[in-house]
């Protein structure tokens, strides 16, 4: 496929290159999910994507670079889904619930990418850890900025915002590791309650979640 001459199908070189790149990123996520990092070779990734090894190296210098790019692409996709779900809501608690719902659906729909984001993120070494951390940090302000002050007029300590997001990521990562990725959406009420309770108290959090 990669050797199709430009003139006959009218596809630009850029289009083909971009398309190949996406196929490679999908292939590496699936191979990592099925076989783990060590057994995911460049040859296997190229084979899975239907490109040659030299095409692979035209896009990425190494398996690690490809891994990082796949992580970024998977996160971008999930983040976009979450942000669009949030944008449809106007109140903070609804926005948090919509974001969590969208996150769980996106992860359940693509278990290989869920595993890449949540399981490999903490387990694949320092480069990927940096990405995992950055991904978690992206959601901390979403939680913090809109959150109302507590019953006594003060905000929970800053560690709470991070611990809430990190705790949810950890819970979901362990469920994905146990093979439960396709069933993640069933955790919606618990995850939403966990996210809202530090800010609203249990009773109010439950009222909002059950009203949805």
């Amino acid at each position: 496929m990669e050797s199709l001459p430009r003139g006959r199908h009218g596809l630009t070189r850029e289009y083909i290159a971009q398309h190949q790149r996406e196929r490679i990123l999908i292939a590496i996520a699936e191979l990592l999910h099925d076989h783990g990092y060590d057994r995911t070779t460049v040859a296997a990734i190229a084979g899975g994507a239907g490109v040659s090894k030299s095409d692979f190296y035209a896009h990425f210098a190494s398996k690690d670079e490809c891994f990082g790019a796949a992580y970024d692409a998977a996160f971008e996709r999930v983040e976009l889904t979450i942000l669009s779900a949030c944008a449809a809501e106007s109140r903070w608690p609804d926005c948090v619930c919509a974001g969590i719902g969208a996150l769980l659906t996106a992860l359940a729909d693509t278990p290989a990418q869920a595993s890449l984001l949540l399981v490999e993120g903490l387990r694949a070494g320092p480069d990927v850890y940096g990405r995992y951390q950055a991904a978690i940090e992206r959601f901390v302000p979403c939680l913090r900025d809109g959150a109302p002050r507590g019953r006594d007029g003060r905000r929970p300590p800053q560690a709470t915002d991070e611990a809430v997001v990190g705790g949810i990521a950890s819970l979901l990562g362990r469920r994905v590791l146990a093979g439960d990725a396709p069933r993640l959406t069933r955790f919606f009420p618990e995850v939403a309650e966990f996210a809202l309770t530090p800010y609203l108290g249990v009773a109010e959090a439950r009222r909002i979640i059950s009203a949805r």
Partner: protein
Amino acid sequence: MPPRGKGGTQETRAPKGSPSIRPTLPREFIALHKQRRIMDALAELTAEQGYEATKISDIVKRAGVARKTLYDNFEGKEEVFLAAFDAARDEILRRVREGSADPDADWQERIEGGLAAFLGFIAEQPTLARMCMIEALSATPETSRRYEEAYETLVELTRRGLPQDERLPGTIAETLVGGVAWIVYQQIRRGEAERAEDLLPELTEFMVAPYVGAGMA
């Protein structure tokens, strides 16, 4: 089993090939001491340069033992890691159990006590903390399995420590431990494990506050 040493004495000679400078130390003592040094060396090297980059030759050099001594005591690098991990895990769990065991304390105080014991270990043993909480996750499939096992034990201890209320979500203990682990993990990554105890007030509030005043405390 042939009698050890001469004339039925409990003391044994130094192993063949090593200078017999301390003939009064029992062989078991020396062996344990050497095992300990090997495990400590691996923990230090792993914290400094990662598990992957740590070679057997680095370990024996750091521990000041012969290569053969390492292989007499361990099958290889992974077994040294697992032995060091198990020892540190046992110590962490012992302290957390002890810290949260006060029968006169209420559940919040017991949670705080367990958390304080955990953070105390991290602050006291930054090298082991890094090995257990960071390197174990990615070193080998078996180290990662043991990490998950130890994590599960902490989740279970937390579950038993929280108020027994069926309205609490079934995953609450797991998510709380995940949140604490994440904050501590970052603290270690930043090279600030020694100050882990500073996190106690905020993490206690994170674990306890949501359930106070909601009919659950």
